[in-house]
Protein backbone atom coordinates (compact mmCIF):
# COMPACT_ATOMS: atom_id res chain seq x y z
CA UNK A 1 0.00 0.00 0.00
CA UNK A 2 1.36 3.37 -1.00
CA UNK A 3 2.21 5.46 2.03
CA UNK A 4 3.43 8.62 0.33
CA UNK A 5 1.27 9.49 -2.64
CA UNK A 6 2.05 12.15 -5.18
CA UNK A 7 -0.39 13.53 -7.68
CA UNK A 8 -0.33 13.73 -10.54
CA UNK A 9 2.38 11.32 -11.71
CA UNK A 10 2.85 13.37 -14.86
CA UNK A 11 2.07 17.06 -15.28
CA UNK A 12 2.38 19.16 -18.41
CA UNK A 13 2.07 22.90 -17.95
CA UNK A 14 2.53 25.94 -20.11
CA UNK A 15 5.40 28.32 -19.69
CA UNK A 16 4.40 30.86 -17.04
CA UNK A 17 1.19 29.12 -16.01
CA UNK A 18 0.98 28.40 -12.27
CA UNK A 19 0.99 24.75 -11.34
CA UNK A 20 0.49 22.85 -8.09
CA UNK A 21 1.82 19.44 -7.22
CA UNK A 22 0.44 17.53 -4.27
CA UNK A 23 1.72 15.02 -1.77
CA UNK A 24 -0.22 13.10 0.84
CA UNK A 25 0.92 10.62 3.45
CA UNK A 26 -0.74 8.02 5.65
CA UNK A 27 2.21 7.63 8.01
CA UNK A 28 1.45 10.55 10.34
CA UNK A 29 5.01 11.74 9.88
CA UNK A 30 5.79 15.22 11.12
CA UNK A 31 8.40 16.11 8.51
CA UNK A 32 7.68 16.51 4.80
CA UNK A 33 10.25 17.35 2.14
CA UNK A 34 10.16 18.52 -1.46
CA UNK A 35 13.04 17.67 -3.76
CA UNK A 36 13.69 18.64 -7.36
CA UNK A 37 15.57 16.18 -9.54
CA UNK A 38 16.67 17.15 -13.01
CA UNK A 39 17.79 14.61 -15.56
CA UNK A 40 20.98 12.77 -14.58
CA UNK A 41 21.34 14.80 -11.39
CA UNK A 42 20.91 14.11 -7.70
CA UNK A 43 17.74 15.17 -5.91
CA UNK A 44 18.05 18.70 -4.60
CA UNK A 45 16.23 19.77 -1.45
CA UNK A 46 13.91 22.72 -2.06
CA UNK A 47 12.34 23.03 1.39
CA UNK A 48 10.86 21.02 4.21
CA UNK A 49 8.26 21.31 6.92
CA UNK A 50 9.07 20.26 10.46
CA UNK A 51 5.54 20.05 11.83
CA UNK A 52 4.16 23.45 10.79
CA UNK A 53 7.55 25.11 10.66
CA UNK A 54 8.61 25.89 7.10
CA UNK A 55 12.32 25.65 6.25
CA UNK A 56 13.40 27.06 2.93
CA UNK A 57 16.77 26.25 1.40
CA UNK A 58 18.82 29.38 0.73
CA UNK A 59 19.12 28.69 -3.00
CA UNK A 60 15.49 27.78 -3.65
CA UNK A 61 14.04 30.31 -6.11
CA UNK A 62 11.14 32.50 -4.98
CA UNK A 63 9.15 30.98 -7.82
CA UNK A 64 8.71 27.90 -5.64
CA UNK A 65 6.32 28.00 -2.70
CA UNK A 66 4.86 25.38 -0.44
CA UNK A 67 1.80 24.88 1.74
CA UNK A 68 1.04 22.34 4.41
CA UNK A 69 -2.57 22.70 5.50
CA UNK A 70 -2.45 19.67 7.78
CA UNK A 71 -0.17 16.80 8.76
CA UNK A 72 -1.19 14.62 5.82
CA UNK A 73 -0.90 17.00 2.90
CA UNK A 74 1.79 19.17 1.42
CA UNK A 75 1.69 21.16 -1.82
CA UNK A 76 4.36 22.53 -4.09
CA UNK A 77 3.32 25.65 -6.00
CA UNK A 78 5.34 26.89 -8.95
CA UNK A 79 4.12 30.40 -9.62
CA UNK A 80 5.55 30.93 -13.10
CA UNK A 81 7.15 27.76 -14.46
CA UNK A 82 10.06 28.19 -16.80
CA UNK A 83 11.62 25.65 -19.13
CA UNK A 84 14.36 25.15 -16.56
CA UNK A 85 11.83 23.95 -14.00
CA UNK A 86 11.09 20.78 -15.95
CA UNK A 87 12.13 17.98 -13.62
CA UNK A 88 10.99 15.15 -11.41
CA UNK A 89 9.61 16.46 -8.13
CA UNK A 90 9.89 14.10 -5.19
CA UNK A 91 8.06 14.30 -1.90
CA UNK A 92 9.40 12.52 1.17
CA UNK A 93 8.31 12.15 4.78
CA UNK A 94 9.92 11.13 8.03
CA UNK A 95 9.29 11.26 11.74
CA UNK A 96 11.80 13.28 13.68
CA UNK A 97 11.71 13.44 17.45
CA UNK A 98 12.34 16.62 19.33
CA UNK A 99 15.75 16.99 20.89
CA UNK A 100 15.95 14.73 23.90
CA UNK A 101 13.12 12.48 22.72
CA UNK A 102 14.55 9.07 21.91
CA UNK A 103 13.23 6.38 19.66
CA UNK A 104 11.02 8.68 17.63
CA UNK A 105 13.06 9.04 14.48
CA UNK A 106 12.29 7.01 11.37
CA UNK A 107 13.81 6.73 7.98
CA UNK A 108 12.60 8.86 5.10
CA UNK A 109 9.96 7.51 2.73
CA UNK A 110 9.65 8.81 -0.81
CA UNK A 111 6.63 9.11 -3.05
CA UNK A 112 6.60 7.98 -6.67
CA UNK A 113 7.34 11.47 -7.92
CA UNK A 114 5.69 13.88 -10.33
CA UNK A 115 7.38 14.46 -13.65
CA UNK A 116 6.80 18.04 -14.72
CA UNK A 117 7.07 19.08 -18.36
CA UNK A 118 6.94 22.76 -19.31
CA UNK A 119 5.91 23.60 -22.86
Amino acid at each position, binding site marked *: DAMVIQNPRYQVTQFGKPVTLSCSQTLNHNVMYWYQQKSSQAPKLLFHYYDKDFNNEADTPDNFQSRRPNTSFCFLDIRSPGLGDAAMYLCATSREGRQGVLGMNT*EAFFGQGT*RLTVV
Partner: protein
Amino acid sequence: ELKVEQNPLFLSMQEGKNYTIYCNYSTTSDRLYWYRQDPGKSLESLFVLLSNGAVKQEGRLMASLDTKARLSTLHITAAVHDLSATYFCAVERTGKLIFGQGTTLQVKP
Protein backbone atom coordinates in the same frame (compact mmCIF):
# COMPACT_ATOMS: atom_id res chain seq x y z
CA GLU B 1 27.72 22.87 5.19
CA LEU B 2 27.10 19.18 4.67
CA LYS B 3 28.56 17.82 1.43
CA VAL B 4 28.22 14.28 0.14
CA GLU B 5 30.47 12.89 -2.58
CA GLN B 6 30.26 9.57 -4.36
CA ASN B 7 32.71 7.81 -6.57
CA PRO B 8 32.80 6.60 -9.15
CA LEU B 9 30.00 8.49 -10.90
CA PHE B 10 29.75 5.91 -13.63
CA LEU B 11 30.60 2.24 -13.46
CA SER B 12 30.45 -0.29 -16.24
CA MET B 13 31.11 -3.84 -15.17
CA GLN B 14 30.76 -7.39 -16.37
CA GLU B 15 28.29 -9.79 -14.87
CA GLY B 16 29.83 -11.87 -12.14
CA LYS B 17 32.35 -9.24 -11.07
CA ASN B 18 32.61 -7.47 -7.71
CA TYR B 19 32.89 -3.75 -7.16
CA THR B 20 32.51 -1.06 -4.49
CA ILE B 21 30.90 2.36 -4.58
CA TYR B 22 32.20 4.92 -2.10
CA CYS B 23 30.36 7.70 -0.31
CA ASN B 24 32.21 10.38 1.64
CA TYR B 25 30.53 13.10 3.67
CA SER B 26 31.86 16.22 5.31
CA THR B 27 30.23 16.49 8.75
CA THR B 28 28.74 14.25 11.39
CA SER B 29 25.48 12.60 10.43
CA ASP B 30 22.40 11.11 12.06
CA ARG B 31 21.68 8.50 9.40
CA LEU B 32 23.07 7.37 6.09
CA TYR B 33 20.91 5.94 3.33
CA TRP B 34 21.52 4.08 0.12
CA TYR B 35 18.88 4.35 -2.59
CA ARG B 36 18.41 2.79 -5.96
CA GLN B 37 16.77 4.67 -8.83
CA ASP B 38 15.70 3.20 -12.15
CA PRO B 39 15.27 5.53 -15.13
CA GLY B 40 12.15 7.68 -14.80
CA LYS B 41 11.28 6.23 -11.41
CA SER B 42 11.42 7.39 -7.82
CA LEU B 43 13.90 6.33 -5.17
CA GLU B 44 13.86 2.86 -3.69
CA SER B 45 15.34 2.59 -0.22
CA LEU B 46 18.03 -0.09 0.03
CA PHE B 47 19.72 0.45 3.39
CA VAL B 48 19.62 2.76 6.38
CA LEU B 49 22.80 2.84 8.46
CA LEU B 50 22.70 4.37 11.89
CA SER B 51 25.91 3.72 13.75
CA ASN B 52 29.62 3.27 13.34
CA GLY B 53 30.50 -0.19 12.09
CA ALA B 54 26.98 -0.90 10.85
CA VAL B 55 26.86 -3.46 8.08
CA LYS B 56 23.74 -4.51 6.21
CA GLN B 57 23.32 -6.99 3.40
CA GLU B 58 20.51 -7.70 0.99
CA GLY B 59 21.15 -10.17 -1.80
CA ARG B 60 24.22 -9.14 -3.76
CA LEU B 61 24.47 -5.73 -2.09
CA MET B 62 26.22 -4.96 1.17
CA ALA B 63 26.52 -1.54 2.79
CA SER B 64 28.81 -0.45 5.59
CA LEU B 65 29.39 2.70 7.59
CA ASP B 66 32.51 4.14 9.18
CA THR B 67 31.47 7.31 10.98
CA LYS B 68 35.00 8.14 12.08
CA ALA B 69 36.19 8.21 8.48
CA ARG B 70 32.83 9.66 7.34
CA LEU B 71 32.70 6.95 4.73
CA SER B 72 30.11 4.48 3.58
CA THR B 73 30.56 1.78 1.00
CA LEU B 74 28.13 -0.18 -1.15
CA HIS B 75 29.68 -3.44 -2.24
CA ILE B 76 28.31 -5.39 -5.18
CA THR B 77 29.03 -9.10 -5.29
CA ALA B 78 28.80 -11.12 -8.50
CA ALA B 79 26.90 -8.44 -10.37
CA VAL B 80 23.90 -9.32 -12.52
CA HIS B 81 22.19 -7.24 -15.21
CA ASP B 82 19.20 -6.53 -12.95
CA LEU B 83 21.43 -4.41 -10.74
CA SER B 84 21.86 -1.84 -13.51
CA ALA B 85 20.53 1.44 -12.06
CA THR B 86 21.71 4.65 -10.43
CA TYR B 87 22.67 4.36 -6.77
CA PHE B 88 22.57 7.33 -4.43
CA CYS B 89 23.89 7.71 -0.94
CA ALA B 90 22.22 10.34 1.22
CA VAL B 91 23.19 11.71 4.59
CA GLU B 92 20.69 12.97 7.10
CA ARG B 93 21.60 15.64 9.60
CA THR B 94 19.28 17.78 11.73
CA GLY B 95 16.32 16.66 9.69
CA LYS B 96 17.78 17.40 6.26
CA LEU B 97 18.60 14.68 3.75
CA ILE B 98 21.43 15.60 1.38
CA PHE B 99 22.28 13.40 -1.61
CA GLY B 100 25.51 12.44 -3.28
CA GLN B 101 25.82 12.85 -7.05
CA GLY B 102 24.80 9.26 -7.74
CA THR B 103 26.65 6.35 -9.34
CA THR B 104 25.23 4.96 -12.54
CA LEU B 105 25.92 1.26 -12.70
CA GLN B 106 25.79 -0.61 -15.98
CA VAL B 107 26.18 -4.37 -15.79
CA LYS B 108 27.00 -6.02 -19.08
CA PRO B 109 26.30 -9.67 -19.88
